[in-house]
């Protein structure tokens, strides 16, 4: 436990908790686009910015990447914080003017948002899918493309490794903009343009998971695939 102050409230922060988590526990609204409680923090969207008193001086910091420590003082509602978040929102809106989640966020942060000409579901490089794939699923099918000094000047993109993907769909589930699409057609699942054969439950006959995902679960748990062929509802 660490005694700290957020917006004048003295609280006992849990060991290892971030400022973002503690602020949200106090029902303080902290906007985020790249944060997920089950994933490592990434600090990409720069919307969760707060002010932290460091050596007597208030400094901006990404609350998702700042551990709550004893004696820390935090402010979440100053002009500085609002301006900083608004700029991040404005820049995201400048880049992705037709993506609903970005438009809504920008508008909420005080950016003058115009009517959209069309609706597009852009990748905003939040890294939720790449982190989910690596940290939760453990297959590394998704990585950022074009990293390092020799990178392409074009926008960095997501690189998909079809051979590694098991079609679990976690990336589509976690994607905030709808950029990652998953479709189901005739016993097949299509995700990132890779087509997966779905397995039908041997009790109810419903398609319930990609065969490759069941094979992956079998490989990692040692349970034979034959024993995984029953869907959750029929088990």
């Amino acid at each position, binding site marked *: 436990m660490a005694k700290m102050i957020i917006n004048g409230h003295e609280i006992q922060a849990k060991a290892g908790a971030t400022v973002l988590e503690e602020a949200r526990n106090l029902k303080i609204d902290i906007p985020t686009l790249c944060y997920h409680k089950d994933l490592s923090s990434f600090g*990409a969207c720069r919307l969760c910015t707060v002010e932290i008193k460091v050596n007597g001086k208030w400094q901006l910091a990404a609350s998702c990447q700042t551990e709550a420590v004893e004696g820390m003082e935090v402010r979440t509602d100053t002009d500085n914080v609002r301006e900083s978040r608004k*700029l991040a929102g404005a820049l995201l809106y400048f880049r992705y003017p037709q993506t609903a989640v970005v438009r809504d966020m920008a508008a909420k942060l005080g950016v003058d948002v115009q009517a959209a000409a069309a609706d597009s579901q852009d990748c905003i490089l939040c890294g939720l899918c790449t982190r989910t794939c690596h940290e939760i699923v453990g297959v590394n099918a998704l990585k950022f493309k074009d990293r390092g000094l020799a990178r392409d000047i074009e926008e960095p993109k997501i690189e998909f490794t079809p051979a590694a993907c098991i079609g679990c769909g976690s990336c589509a589930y976690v994607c905030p903009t709808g950029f990652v699409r998953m479709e189901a057609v005739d016993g097949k699942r299509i995700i990132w343009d890779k087509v997966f054969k779905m397995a039908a439950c041997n009790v109810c006959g419903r398609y319930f998971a990609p065969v490759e995902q069941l094979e992956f679960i079998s490989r990692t748990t040692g349970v034979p695939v034959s024993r995984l062929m029953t869907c959750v509802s029929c088990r």
Partner: protein
Amino acid sequence: MNTVAFSSWNGKIIDNRTSGKGAGKAKKPAEGAFPAALDGQSYDALMGWNGLVVVDPKADVVALTLAYLGEARKLSCGECSVCMIGIDRVRDILQGLSSGKSSSKDITEIEDIVKGVMVNSKCNFGRASALTPVLDAVKYFKASFLEAGKVGKKVEEKAFQSAVTAPCMKACPATLDIPGYIELIRNNKFKESLDLVRERCILPGVIGRACTHPCESACVRKDMDGSLAIRLLKRAAADQDLQGGSALPIPKEEKKEKIAVIGAGPAGLAAAYHLRLRGYGVTIFEALPKAGGMAAVGIPDYRLPKDILNHEIDLIKRMGVDVRYNSKVEALNAADFQQQGYAAVFTAIGAHVGTKIGCKGEEIASDDVVQGADFLRGLSLGKKANPVDRVVIIGGGNVALDCARNCLRLGFKNVEIVYRRSRVEMPGSREEIEEAIHEGVKFTYLTAPVGIIRKAAKVTAIECVKMKLGEPDESGRKRPIPIKGSEFTLKTNMVIAATGQKPDLGLLTGKDKGTMTTAWGTIKADPVSCSTPATRIFAGGDCVSGPATLIEALNMGNKAAKSIDAYLQGKTFVDELSFEDIDVGQQRDMGFVPPAKSGEVKFLDMAERLKGFAEVEGGFSADAAIKEAQRCLRCYRLMVWQ
């Protein structure tokens, strides 16, 4: 450069534009107020991470700013939402300005974006470099920007030069793109990371273990929550690859010329790799039955397992580099080599001969008074050691420490290092000293040997004198001065002298002996181009610099390859821009960096260590490496000039 019209370097504003009647009357800026790295090169205007310098008042600051933003865009990783999009937005506004749509409001928007990016970027490129100098440009050259808008002046496409560095890159003797390869690890791209490392360091697994890592001392996080474990990250990239087993690139073309490399140490191997990659036929003549130079016969197994080194040498050999073992070159003669079909020779014979300690009794040849370099080489080549009760090692460098830690593993009971200065002046690396103490090596500081005492032709003791420290000498370290009357004897059965090494210059014959040798007993060669007074003969590594680090030697090999290539292709060899005289650590405001502790690796149990030569230091797992890599602040510094 003597005068500037304007400078905001390091935030110190010098504005000579209004003084006098314009150009030509400008005053010289204060020391440190402009980037000295470009001294001697003429430029009209320069924009760097920490300011704007305008020499010629007629220079086009708008064009310079756009060129800077173009280069900054390449360095912005796009990982956070403000830096890359901020650069694009500012470019958009500036391009709008230059097509005639301008207003003061645009300048205000630029200022807001720049300030926002400086305080809210995820990494230190955004905070320090990406847009910082643009703020000075729009502030102090506002009229130029507004003018560009009014007249719709087309921004001229001019050739700008640019250079990139970072505090860690500048500290690295081989200027590795450290933030780049760390970024690739952070993104779980170990293979790509290793490829990037190999562009300048062809022995990544070796250097990832045995480097003295000056980069880590320069790391911006050093004084916050500790430097990045840069060396271990490089090792992680190399170790991950051991499982995958990559191959080095195949030369795109074959050139007709063959090149001889003398010595298969880090310098020779690096030169061989880069020359082979350019399509040259390469033969390495190695005097010993093993390749690797000091990495093979100097650095002990417990610091560098030899399968790591051999794997990396094998990769180079598989590119078609011919390594001839037990092939000592007796005479360095360009004509002889030419007759054998070699268009050029790169001499990288290292510095394997120990220097005398300068005490009585060391001139008598015996098995119990040996040179550190000979001792280590003997062990590496399978010579059996005869452990005795007491051994005294003279010297304070890594060779002394390597000898001492080896002795403990060989079964010597009392191992003592005698050094003439104190611990802080010891040139050996801090980790080595700590591990040696940890393992049980005894250290006696401020003590110098005077004479070796023998009984019945066997060493029984060493006479020493106590020292005190005086004023700093030319090496910058405090000079040790003997204290009269403080002589004492130290019982020992063996003395290992590890006070320095020099190259064996036996291969210089005839008049070359004089023209090719320096006063320090090394080969005379240009430290940049590696060329020597003899035509077609190049030299680099320890035999030119004197005993230095692996990475320094390796970098000389990198340079030599470029230089030999330029020579054979009839081109002029141009070295990279040096940031030597610029403080690249300087930046306007660091802001707040959330603390994150560096990951730790496991060290071999003390009980296991002294049983043999197993590697002591463990490496990062892939996940631990990714986590550590996330601590990197990416302190890229950019400079664009014309």
